[in-house]
């Protein structure tokens, strides 16, 4: 049952990323190119995705997911250096390539070999992340 929900969610996610144009790096970089030929498409995608999720979150109160006892709890309202530092690195790579993790997976099948170059580098980065985190934030965040 959980696998079925995962498959359905992944199908909707993959279809949505493709149809919306978010697997097209030119559209993503166009959104980030405020000083160039700005492309607002990403705002429509983000807005479109937030609408169903807004209602999905609203309806969670007093209910439970189909296959689990509880919904994910709201994370602590804590803006730490990790969140800021990680988001800066991510944003730089996102701008440089026009790819974030979802579209990087969704474009692998048809986008050609350069998508695999990015994907493998991203996996290596994900593998290195715990060590980078430990080296930079060990003292500040010992319990991670």
């Amino acid at each position, binding site marked *: 049952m959980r696998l079925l929900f995962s498959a359905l969610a992944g199908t909707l996610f993959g279809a949505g*990323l493709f*149809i919306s144009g978010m697997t097209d790096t030119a559209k993503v970089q166009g959104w980030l190119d405020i000083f160039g030929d700005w492309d607002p498409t990403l705002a429509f995608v983000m807005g479109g995705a937030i609408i169903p999720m807004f209602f999905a979150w609203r309806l969670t109160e007093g209910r439970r997911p189909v296959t689990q006892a509880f919904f994910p709890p709201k994370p602590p309202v804590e803006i730490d250096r990790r969140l800021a530092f*990680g988001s*800066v690195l991510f944003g*730089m790579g996102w701008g440089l390539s026009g790819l974030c993790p979802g579209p990087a997976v*969704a474009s692998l099948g048809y986008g050609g070999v350069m998508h695999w170059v990015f994907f493998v580098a991203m996996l*290596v980065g994900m593998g290195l992340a715990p060590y980078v985190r430990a080296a930079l934030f060990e003292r500040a965040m010992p319990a991670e």
Partner: protein
Amino acid sequence: MQSEWLWGLGGGLLIGLGAAMLLWGNGKIMGASGLLGGLVDGSGRSDWAERAVFLIATFATPLVIYPLFNEVDTHISSNWLVLVVAGLLVGIGTRIANGCTSGHGVCGISRFSLRGIVATLIYIAAGGASVLVFRHMLEVI
């Protein structure tokens, strides 16, 4: 141009429905970097199968539907060095920040999570600065 905005809105709705499906079905946040990263660093070992099924479906669906569209071009850089550096930054950054566009952006903003909103503002600002520097100043992308 405006039809592209409508495709964006329609595709965005599908992304949001996918996130709602994972939330209501499995009680999970649909964050691409978290689902994938957990498989890479071993933190997602306990539910690896559902992560893998989700990612395979994300990978396979565009592969199946792209022939229905003409002139599919992802406009990816042909510079492998740019892509390697960008991939490393995205991989390390999303895991340190605990989320990317889907987790912090779609799932976080929609529940008014301050962390999600702040992360999104930061990575969009950093992305804008990145395009400004690498496209308009250094002209490498």
